[in-house]
């Protein structure tokens, strides 16, 4: 093993290889702090070769690794692996090429999501996926977890905007997948790689699709007396045949928190607010806006406000996108869930969540992508209470199983990570999971690439739902 580290030292100079506590400790967790694990080392490569050489070494010595960008995962996706290393990709952060005529950009994995749009703005283009943490999170992480955002119904998720990849496979070989076209000829290997939660290797160069910035936007903020009424409004909009760019709902707690964070002017006396955004050609948006206004009038909104300027529109979004972190103002400890339900079951899901919440005696703030049925219940708890976290996790589990019962998914955009591992067997059969494992082992026979994430496997036996997390029992992770 010491051989491994001495070889690692020959790849990285001391200022890009961290082995001391002060430089390793800040990497023990990502956006989900209830899980912590200390890596043996953190490396900071500055070239594709360094990444590939590191992986070759990891493969040779069977050392597990996790690639990390800004560490904003809400599912523990970039949680270090015991006895493993962290490969920090923050210095691979260049936009290598931007081709406005082809509407593509080639970027390194450490580029921050919103920087792509900023660079493309001069050409009237943007990168559509807009996870709430887009000013922070890196494209490498977006890719690994197939991140979503507020505009997925119309524009799809990250996966729909990644065209080609240069990847380092877990044994250090480098492969080219996809191309610079929107279309494929042959199998969609890029589609498989995106969202594979780091299990298939590390993306080194990423060809992304850019889209023309819509000519016009209309952003409507409507407030309602109940969450159900806001949910019904979403159904009414969908039924009207209009396809909005985004439909988002926040409940009272979330509104309160977001308002405290950014003063976006949300209606603080409302039980729920609905944001609907139209985008496209001016003439088309104007016509849709007429139709939408008529529909909205019949939804019993207390108040309907239309953003009058770009600033106002951006402020509405800033508040929405700050909501998760802003909930930290209401409670320093919370866990975010990410289940999906069929849109028509939104009302039922919200009613049940509210019932679960009072049964558990825990407050739940709701922020969600209503257009996609993607719920984000934020379960607030007090970690200083002996069973605070356990109670919160039990509630989270109840909510996820509810999503599955209603025909949905355990994760819409945050990924499985470590946090939802134990629910994978609820969503997939042993046969399905076995197939996933076969795919994984075909690419990574030693299972070193982000071991312990997404797939319950030999190191991470899942299946228990109460008491300590299975990963804890297995000694893979520890908390606090």
């Amino acid at each position, binding site marked *: 093993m010491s051989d491994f580290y001495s070889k690692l030292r020959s790849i990285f100079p001391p200022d890009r290889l961290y082995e001391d506590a002060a430089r390793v400790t800040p*990497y023990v967790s*990502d956006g989900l702090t209830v899980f912590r694990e200390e890596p043996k080392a953190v490396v900071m490569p500055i070239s594709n070769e360094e990444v590939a050489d590191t992986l070759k070494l990891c493969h040779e010595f069977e050392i597990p690794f996790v690639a990390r960008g800004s560490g904003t995962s809400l599912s523990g996706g970039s949680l270090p692996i015991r006895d493993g290393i962290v490969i920090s990709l923050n210095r691979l952060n260049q936009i290598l090429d931007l081709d406005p005529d082809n509407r593509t950009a080639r970027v390194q994995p450490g580029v921050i999501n919103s920087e792509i749009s900023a660079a493309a703005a001069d050409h009237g283009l943007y990168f559509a996926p807009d996870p709430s943490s887009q000013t922070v999170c890196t494209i490498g992480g977006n890719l690994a977890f197939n991140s979503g955002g507020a505009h997925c119904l119309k524009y799809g998720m990250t996966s729909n905007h990644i065209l080609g990849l240069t990847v380092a496979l877990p044994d250090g070989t480098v492969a080219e997948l996809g191309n610079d076209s929107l279309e494929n000829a042959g199998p969609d290997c890029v589609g498989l790689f995106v969202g594979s939660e780091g299990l298939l290797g590390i993306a080194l160069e990423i060809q992304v699709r850019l889209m023309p910035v819509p000519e016009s936007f209309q952003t409507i903020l409507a407030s309602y007396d109940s969450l159900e009424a806001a949910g019904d409004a979403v159904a009414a909009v969908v039924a009207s045949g209009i396809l909005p760019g985004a439909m988002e709902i926040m409940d009272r707690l979330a509104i309160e928190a977001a308002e405290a*964070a950014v003063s976006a002017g949300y209606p603080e006396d409302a039980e729920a607010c609905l944001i609907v955004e139209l985008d496209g050609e001016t003439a088309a948006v104007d016509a849709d806006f007429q139709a939408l206004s008529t529909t909205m009038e019949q939804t019993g909104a207390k108040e309907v406000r239309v953003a009058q300027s770009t600033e106002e529109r951006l402020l509405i979004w800033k508040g929405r996108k700050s909501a998760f*972190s802003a909930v*930290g*103002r209401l409670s320093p*400890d*919370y866990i975010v869930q990410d289940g999906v339900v069929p849109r028509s079951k939104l009302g039922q899901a919200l009613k049940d969540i509210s019932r679960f919440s009072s049964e558990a005696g825990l407050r739940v703030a709701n922020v969600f992508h209503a257009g996609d049925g993607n719920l984000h219940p934020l379960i607030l708890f007090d970690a200083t209470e002996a069973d605070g976290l356990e109670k919160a996790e039990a509630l989270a589990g109840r909510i996820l199983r509810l999503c599955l019962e209603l025909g949905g998914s355990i994760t819409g955009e945050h990924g499985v990570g470590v946090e939802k591992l134990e629910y994978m067997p609820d969503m997939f059969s042993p046969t399905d999971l076995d197939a996933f494992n076969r795919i994984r082992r075909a690419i990574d026979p030693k299972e070193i690439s982000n071991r312990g994430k997404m797939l319950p496997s030999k190191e991470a036996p899942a299946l228990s739902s109460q008491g300590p997390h299975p990963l804890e029992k297995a000694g893979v992770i520890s908390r606090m």
Partner: protein
Amino acid sequence: MISQISKDKLGPKYASMKEPIEACVHCGFCLPTCPTYSTMGDEMNSPRGRIFLMKETLEGKIDPSEIDPFIDNCLGCLACVTSCPSGVEYGELISPYRSWSEEQRKRGTLEKLQRFALLKTIPCPDRFRAASKIASVFKPVAPYLPKSFGAMIELAPSQLPEKQEFDPIYPANGTRRGRVALLIGCAQQALAPKINQAAINVLTRNGIEVVVPESQGCCGSLAMHIGASKEAQAAAKKNFEAFPDDVDAIISTAAGCGSGMKEYGTLFAGADEEIADQAKAYSAKVQDVCAYLDAVGFAPPENSEAPPIKVAYHDACHLAHAQKIRSAPRKLLQSVPGIELLEPAEWEICCGSAGSYNIEHPDTAKELGKRKVKNLMATNPDVIATGNIGCLTQIEFHSKDSEKPVPVVHTVELLDGWSPGR
């Protein structure tokens, strides 16, 4: 984020550090606006990384000396506070932490000497003047000196303006609408006395009487921001005595001083009640010159002949982030006929001046300074305006190399009718 920090162990002076630590949810929204993270790209040089390290240290899991380099790297610009959705008051953590860790720290002789030199010269205009003269002699050999000493000498102005004395009181023009006391500052008074003069002109012209307390000294902010709380407290106490009570506001023309004085409450946390109350009362009166002018109403100078000028406005961190003042200076500038206001990219990123940071961490400061100048120059301005002497010096220094350097002035100078020819 839960912590196992014991308030009892920390004592009343430092117990308050627990709150900002526990308020942090580790979401990372602070990362892109942090100047050290955006240049170094590693977690321990980010706000949330530092918070985590401070937590581990205060819990006794890591020795403070191990994390010192990363705490020292922080410019204290507080951009992280602006970008934090969870409302973490990082400023209320980093200053006390620095003071706490200073108590446990053993510094090398050279480093001690430098800190001593800084703390003794910058806050005293006369010593600063003397030191600058000495420094100018050493300029040719600066590259051969230890890095930060070299920087200290490199950054020292080669020539200082004439020393300027102020009257104890400047009456208001016309009807008196208010009465304020002006903190003239220390480094600023040596480097650019014209700023205070401009402030006095603008205030009096707008019907405000200006008192300039004679026995005033350094406000102590520089010391406070590098963890020298004893020195900071001594300086502050001196000003509590020097400043009169019968004024509407205590006006600062330097963002760093203004924000420091607003933090006196934290500085005197755990001190005896009388002095703590005095600190709070003093703090409550502190106002930045632009914020004050905006609040009481400002009439631009009557100068119809003035040619139109394009002004790139640089947000000083201690104004924009620490005091959350962004719109007042813009509003005032835009009310001056002929001024066109330009907005540079990355307004939230520090210019690298940050008190004495450019002396203690010259490499990072240089990188940030160049980046800031690049962003400012990209707007193609006639003049750059800012509300802090540190930024002013830093930007002036790093724009020397740009193709077409432009003057860098304090906002209040423009409000006083500054124009390129004048």
